[in-house]
Structures are given as C-alpha cells and as structure tokens.
C-alpha cells in the first residue's frame, strides 16, 4: 500500500507541475505584455504556442498513451478549422459577432473533428503499426484535398455544395459563398487570443490527465503494452483505441478552431494541414517524450520558438530538426545503446533507480 500511495503522490505532483508551469508562463507573459516588453514577433507566436501544444498533447494520447502511430493528425485539425470557420464566417455575414460565437465554434470544431475521428477510426484501427501510419497519412491527405476542392455557399434556399466551381453552386443573388475552393475562407473573425488558447490548453490537459488515470486510460495503456494479454482479460481493443483516437481527434479539432480564428484567411495548404504538419506534431511528441504530457508542451513551445530565435539559421532549421530526430531515436531506441544504459544503471544505481522503489528495497533490507 505504501508503494501505491507514494506513486499516487508522485503522479499528483507531476500533474500539479504541469498546471503550475502553464499558469506561471501565462502570468509572466501577461505581466510582460502589460508593460509592453514583448516584441510583436513573440506576440504573434503566443496563439501558435497554444495551438501546437494542444496538437502535441492530443497526438501524444494516440502515439504515446495508445501506442498507435497516426500520421494524419493535421487532417483532424483541418476538419475543426474549416467547420468552425464556416460557422463563424457565415455568422459574420449575417452580422452576428461576439465571443460567445467562439465558444459555439469550439464546440462545433471539436464535435465535427471527433465524429470524423470516430468514423475514420472504425476502419483504420483494425490495422496495426506501419499500415495504420500509412492509412492515417492517406486520410489526412484526403481531408486536405477535399478541403481544397470544396465550394460552399448559403442562400435563402439553404446550403449549396459543389466540388467544381463557384458557378456550379447555383446560388441566388442574396447568397453568400463561404468556402471558395483552393482560396479557402477569407475574412474569418479574429477571436483567438492567448488567454483563450491557455484556457483551451488547460481544459485539454485536464481531460487527458484524468483520462490516463481512469479505468479507461489504464485499459488503453494495457492494450499498448500487450494487446494480446489485454484482450485475453476482456479489454476490447477496438473500443478503447477508438476512444483514445476520437478524443485526440476532437482535441486536434479544437486546435484547428484556435488556428482558424487567429488568421484572416484559411486555406488548406500542405504546410498547415498536410502531411508535413502531421510530422511536425509527431516530432514534438517524440522529442518531448512519448506519453509525457509535460514534455509535449515544452517541446511544442521550444521547437516553435527556436526557429524564430535562430532567424539567421533559417535555412538549416529543418536540417537540424531532422538530424536531432534521427539522433534522438537512435539514442533512445537502439538495442546496443540500451545495453550501455543498462550497464550504467547497474554501476550507479543511486543515480538512476526509481527513488520510490529504492526506499522499498531498503526497508526490506532491514
């Protein structure tokens, strides 16, 4: 029992440290910005910090906690961004504006991305490993492609949808075209702010931390660690993987809402919703530590900030990224290097061993 309680205490302090980290960072930024000490460059990065953190944390739920490699996370962000922006843009056309619309937009974005995640997850999660990765990548690309080809307009007869061009919509004179194919949505209202981003991030983290520690979360982790053993004790693999996948998709959708309402023009480019974006998020998760929520946030913030700080090294930025990625993977996963780590752990047990377990063994020694 003693061991269990100490574990719980450790978990609690870890969770508190995440919240503290965000709140302190928020307070510092707000204090500095009230004194006008923050450059406009940094000011512009505040919302992306939150967007990327939410994306990284949510992808961590899929990759780190659930153990399934998804390369289509940006696709769900795209769904959230577009559905919510269609709503707010149309409301703006009708002359309705207000922050409460943003709350509705977030719910719309999260819901639609979550439903997409569920629908895509049902067929996709039957696959494993590399196949799953490639299929999620395919889905991400399909979503981006469709977002690029879609034309959507409203008039008094209702919604008009086309995949060809604006003429094909057949709108009446009073109609209004919201999505113009590859040009996307222009004139989305600017609702996103750092405060909104931080609140959304905190909500995301609360949901994920509670999920991980719940019965559902333990089932998800059990499936990750040994699918066959977990299934043999009656844990439905499909159900729990689907829960993790669709929750993560809904969160990516929220990040999309935040992203869409931070820009005036929303287009689906390979840069923002394509496979490259999915990979960038994956890099945050991997470098932050798989399954580590705090690590994901730190990695997302640092890796978003770093290229801006190193403007002179802009050309080498992605090169450095890629080398770091390869080196980190080799050092953390290569069997031969793991052996050295084991030798090191045996030589210096005090440095590396889990303090909770240490106490336990000491007591047994007495």
């Amino acid at each position, binding site marked *: 029992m003693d061991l269990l309680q100490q574990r719980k205490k450790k978990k609690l302090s870890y969770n508190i440290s995440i919240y503290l980290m965000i709140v302190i960072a928020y307070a510092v930024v707000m204090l500095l910005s009230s004194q006008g000490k923050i450059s406009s460059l940094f000011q512009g990065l505040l919302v992306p910090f939150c967007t990327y953190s939410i994306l990284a944390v949510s992808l961590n739920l899929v*990759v780190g906690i659930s*153990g399934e*490699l998804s390369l289509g996370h940006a696709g769900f962000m795209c769904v959230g961004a577009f559905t919510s922006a269609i709503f707010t843009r149309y409301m703006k056309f009708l002359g309705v504006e207000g922050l409460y619309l943003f709350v509705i937009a977030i719910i719309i974005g999260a819901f639609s991305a979550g439903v997409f995640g569920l629908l895509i997850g049902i*067929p*996709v999660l*039957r*696959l494993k*490993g*590399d*196949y799953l*990765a*490639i*299929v999620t*990548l*395919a*889905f991400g*690309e*399909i979503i981006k*492609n*469709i977002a*690029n*080809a879609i034309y959507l307009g409203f008039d008094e007869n209702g919604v008009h949808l086309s*995949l*060809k061009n604006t003429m094909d919509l057949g709108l009446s004179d009073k109609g209004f075209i919201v999505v113009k*194919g*590859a040009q996307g949505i222009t004139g989305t209202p600017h609702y996103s702010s750092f405060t909104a981003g931080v609140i959304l991030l905190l909500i995301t983290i609360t949901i994920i931390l509670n999920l991980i520690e719940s019965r559902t979360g333990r089932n998800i982790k059990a499936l990750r660690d040994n699918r*066959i053993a977990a299934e043999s004790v009656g844990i439905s693999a499909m159900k729990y993987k689907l829960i993790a996948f669709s929750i993560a998709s809904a969160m990516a959708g929220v990040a999309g809402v935040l992203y869409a309402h931070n820009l005036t023009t929303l287009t689906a480019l390979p840069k923002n919703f394509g*496979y490259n974006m999915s*990979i960038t998020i*994956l890099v945050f998760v*991997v470098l932050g530590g798989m399954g580590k929520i705090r690590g994901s946030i730190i990695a997302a913030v640092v890796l978003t900030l770093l290229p801006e700080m190193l403007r002179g090294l802009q*050309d*080498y930025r*992605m*090169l450095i*990224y*890629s*080398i770091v*990625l*390869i080196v980190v*993977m*080799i050092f*953390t*996963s*290569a*069997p*031969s*290097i793991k052996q050295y780590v084991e030798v090191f752990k045996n030589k210096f047990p005090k440095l590396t061993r889990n303090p909770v377990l240490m106490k336990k063994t000491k007591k047994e020694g007495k």
Partner: protein
Amino acid sequence: MDFFTYLVSGLSLGSIYAIIALGYTMVYGIAKMLNFAHGDVLMIGAYISFVFMNQLGVDPALSVLLACISCTVIGITIERIAYKPLRGANSLAVLITAIGVSYFLQNIALLVYGANPKSYKSVVSIPPLHLFNGALSISGESIVTILLCILIMIALTTFINKTKMGQAMLAVSEDRGASTLMGINVNGTIALTFAIGSFLAAIAGALLCSAYPTLTPTTGAMPGIKAFVAAVIGGIGSIPGAFIGGLILGVLENLSKAYISAQLSDAIVFSLLIIMLLIKPSGILGKTNIEKV
C-alpha cells in the same frame, strides 16, 4: 481514342510507381521496415542525373547510370548510419527515424539546389509513336518507361529466384533468425536490398522527371507515398504485387484526373488504399500473417 491516350500515360506513370514500389516492397519484406526516405532517394537521384546531364553535359544514359551508382552508395550509407543501429528496436522508432532521414535528404537538396524548381531535360530521345493515323500518340518516355519497367521486373525476379544472393534475400525475409543460423550474412543481405532499391529509385527519378519535368526538393515525397500505396495494394513483400499495384494506381490516377477532377485525384488514389486495406489487408498478392502469442 482519348481514353487510350490517358490509359497509356497512366500505364507509364504506373510503371514509374512500380519501379519505386519495388524498393519499398523489398525493403519491407526483408528488413521489416517502412523506408519513408525512399521517395527522397529518388529525388536525390534525379538531382544527380540533372547535374550530370544539364550542367556537365554528360550523355543522358551515362548520367542516369552515374546517378544510380551514387544513389546505391547513398542508400547503403543511410542504412548503415540510421537504420542498422535500430535493428531489433520497435517499429515506431524505426519509422520515425526513416521520417527523419526523409526530412534530412529533402533539406540537403534544399540547401544545395535551392527551392526554385529545375526544369529537367528528358533523358529519352525517342520520337513519339503515332498509331491509328495519329489518333493515338504515345510519347517516347512512355515507351521507354513501360519497357524498362517490364525489363526490371524480369531481371529482378530472375535474380531472386536463380541466384544465391536472391535466395538469401528470400530466406531473410522468411525468417531472420533461422537464416543467420544457416550462415547467411543478414546484414549484408539487408544492405544489398537497400542498394538495389536505391539503384532502382534513381532510374525511377530520371523517368519521373522526364515525364513531368519540374524538379524540386519535394518531388519525391508524393510519388514515394503513392508508390508505397501501390506496394500495399499489390501485397507488400511481393515483387509482381508491386508491379500490379503500381499499374493499377497509375491508371486510376490518370483516369480520375481526366474524367473526375484533377484536384480530387489524390483523394481517389488514397481511397483505393483504404478500400483495399479493409477488404484484404494483405494486398492482392500478399501473404496473410497469423499473429502468434
């Protein structure tokens, strides 16, 4: 006749996919890893042949050969540095490393050659073939691509079935542990697989850029992914499967570009993958693996 024109150019594109897919399918079959960087090796190969041909004025065939040799060296080097240490690690780690390598190659190309697209001079100098009084014309590139693809398929199948090295490759893909016990040099065999894959990637790069003459650092990314899709559709690990998958994909892409929508053609191609994986996850010619506890 329009239909046949699209069909032939689809077959030509499909042949290129098939050649790229061979690299994927062999590496996946033997090293059990998804080499995400394969498409980027193709791009590097295209740049090398571009430099030899357009800037140094070397003969097209010779410059493709030089590109093939350079790519073979690059492929083996990548395998040694990035993938070999991870042999036996979990597949997620290997996949992410491969993504890292892919980014690395793209950014090296970006640094060396810049982001501006290069216009690639066709390596083929055969005049187009006019059939049925000019109603159907087949470009020289298409003829060479399709013939070369068939030739490569025959050569590779013969190599694998008739030579000792090919048999070693089959053995390693079947059971790595057992082939080590039988005295097969597993690391050497895997390196050979990467060498063959990269050699073919350089050929595919030259053919691809001859047919679609813009060369940028991201040229290889999309064809690479599509070729992997082709390999999965045909049944990963199977050489004739890669051929069939590549052709299906190329034809489907061209026909949907022509008759449905140019913008949605990628979406249609990827939908085929998803449908295929739902109906028969092992692909057309793939073997089903039963998971044992």
